[in-house]
């Protein structure tokens, strides 16, 4: 297990600049999406707060602050690769290229949504990008093994990325999956998003070791911990892990020390954690923007344009969702069986 430090981007300076802009663009798009969902989620929950009310009811787990993980990892993937995510899935869904309209429409419970409104935000299944997620902690890992297994059998170099939080690394399915993937040399990249908290339980009260990379070693695979929630560090760590998997050298694990900027879910009063103001450079988005501007990769105007473009894309998707019809209750039990 090693801890990586920010890499010098590889390749030609020009290509690098484009790649760095893309990372920023992805992060910006994710943030724009999460902010828009937050806005619309809260728009009609009152008076007071009723979780069941409004255009977007139910639990809502947003990933603002964790964009570097999704952007850094998914930059190495194509739509032929699989991603299995968690109850907090939007950032990975977007970074992996899910159609924003189908995503938004599912969150708004519309017939045009990915699952015709059946799934909701924790149950996004996209055959086009081999994306799925699960609301049950760590239980998204095992199906990723099967996707990787199928890709391997089909003689391709496609891979599967399996994501969980640090809280999930204490769930049995996490360990079973690592062992089986290592044993069968499956092309999987395991990603652990360590945002320090599992709802209100701090990492120190849930996890007996300092790094989940140490747990990779317990299953005979390389593990790395990225300490800085910087997209380029994640990108570099993922480059190795993805290359390894594609080359048939088996699975590996990346843990990223990231930060959830908002509550566990919307409505979380967060009485259990101190103000984030204490965390220096806590928001990775302006930090990265400043870096890119300082490095001459973006002008402020470029960056603003990226933000504007992201916002437009998101608003278009949300408008599409809102304009879409709700599912017909007469078909509530459709799709139980094929």
């Amino acid at each position, binding site marked *: 297990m090693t801890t990586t430090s920010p890499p010098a981007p590889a390749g030609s300076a020009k290509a690098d600049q484009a790649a760095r802009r893309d990372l920023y663009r992805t992060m910006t798009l994710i943030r724009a999406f999460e902010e828009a969902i937050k806005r619309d989620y809260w728009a009609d929950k009152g008076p007071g707060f009723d*979780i069941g009310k409004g255009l977007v009811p139910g*639990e809502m787990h947003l990933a603002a602050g964790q964009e570097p993980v999704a952007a850094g990892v998914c930059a190495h993937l194509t739509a032929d690769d699989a991603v299995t995510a968690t109850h907090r899935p939007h950032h990975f869904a977007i970074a992996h290229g899910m159609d924003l309209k189908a995503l938004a429409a599912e969150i708004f419970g519309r017939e045009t949504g990915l699952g015709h409104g059946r*799934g909701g935000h924790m149950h996004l299944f996209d055959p086009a990008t081999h994306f799925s997620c699960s609301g*049950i902690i760590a239980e998204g890992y095992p199906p990723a093994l099967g996707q990787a297994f199928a890709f391997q059998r089909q003689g391709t170099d496609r891979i599967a990325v399996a994501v969980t939080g640090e809280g*999930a690394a204490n769930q049995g399915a996490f360990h079973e999956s690592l062992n089986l993937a290592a044993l069968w040399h499956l092309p999987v990249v395991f990603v652990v998003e360590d945002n320090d908290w*599992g*709802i209100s339980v701090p990492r120190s*009260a849930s996890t007996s070791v300092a790094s989940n990379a140490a747990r990779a070693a317990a299953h005979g695979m390389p593990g790395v911990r990225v300490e800085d929630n910087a997209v380029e560090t994640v990108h570099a760590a993922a480059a190795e892990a993805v290359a390894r998997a594609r080359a048939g050298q088996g699975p590996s694990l990346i843990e990223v020390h990231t930060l959830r900027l908002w509550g566990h879910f919307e409505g979380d009063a967060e009485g259990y954690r101190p103000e984030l103001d204490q965390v220096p450079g806590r928001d990775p988005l302006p930090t990265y923007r400043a870096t890119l501007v300082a490095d001459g990769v973006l002008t402020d105007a470029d960056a603003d344009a990226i933000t504007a473009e992201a916002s437009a894309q998101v608003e278009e998707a949300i408008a599409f969702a809102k304009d879409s019809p709700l*599912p017909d209750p007469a078909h509530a039990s459709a799709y139980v069986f094929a």
Partner: protein
Amino acid sequence: MTVTETPATPAPQSHRLTTAKAMADGIAEEMRRDPAVIYLGEDVGAYGGIFGSTTGLLDEFGPTRVLDTPISESAFIGLGIGAAVEGMRPIVELMFADFMGVCLDQIYNHMAKIHFESGGNVKVPMVLTTAVGGGYSDAAQHSQCLWGTFAHLPGMKVVVPSNPYDAKGLMISAIRDDNPVVYMFHKGVMGLAWMAKNPRASADVPDGAYTVEIGKAATARKGTDVTVVTLSLSVHHALDVAERLAPQGIDVEVIDLRSLVPLDREAILGSVARTGHLVVVDEDYLSFGLSGEVVATVTEHDPGMLRAAAVRVANPDTPVPYSRPLEQVVLPGPARIEAAIRKVLGG
């Protein structure tokens, strides 16, 4: 209109509590009385339980008796079992019943069977609390009732309070019971500030300890025309419907089962004997569960008791859909209950 044990007028020593607060109150009573009682689970400490089941407990009893756990349900439920075997009285929270799939082995092959396998030599006096139910768009993995599943597997009692008084009294009974008791609380009856509330989710609750006997159904409303056998949040829907139908000359009896194991078969038979008509309302999946068991209870006693075919109102064997209009028809809400009552009465 509420349970028989509830005093008609509030006792002098009582407070108006939500179901959640009444549940926590019952736990606190027992924790004060018996140092062997502890509470453990995810987010039960500083957070006070995602659905308010432990509000205030950490403050009063501290982190040695109210313990936040890792997300390791098999390990910490098993820990509860071992502690119970050695004389403690653990209450262990499984945050949502939907998560049973990651830890059912500890529950049904261990917690529930040790007493039997030991020939009665080892007791497992623990309470497994867990939140159930839908209605707020939490979709297929966070909205299930699943009490039929727990009740099917022998060796554990299964209680399902519908109101503050029962929530407290059944909790105290559960803690004092020498058997494992699964205590399933519907989010919709908890009276949470952040969820739609039925007015019955708050009520006057006596201070101090009292018990509600596990295994005795309550007649939530007396009636002569039709028996509605139900439990948990559906009790409220059934009572709402009953009140609406009363002026129309339809007099509905509502039986609140309060526990699945033991199942109060006498209460079911007694009521149906009087009304001759049976509707079962169950938010769990329709087939192979509670609703069939209730109907079969009558039929294996005497099918002649029924003057019309029994009607079941339940989830039509469908994962709970996210989208509101879909979820609303899958749940056994007031409209479906009313239609069932009219149907069984030949309307």
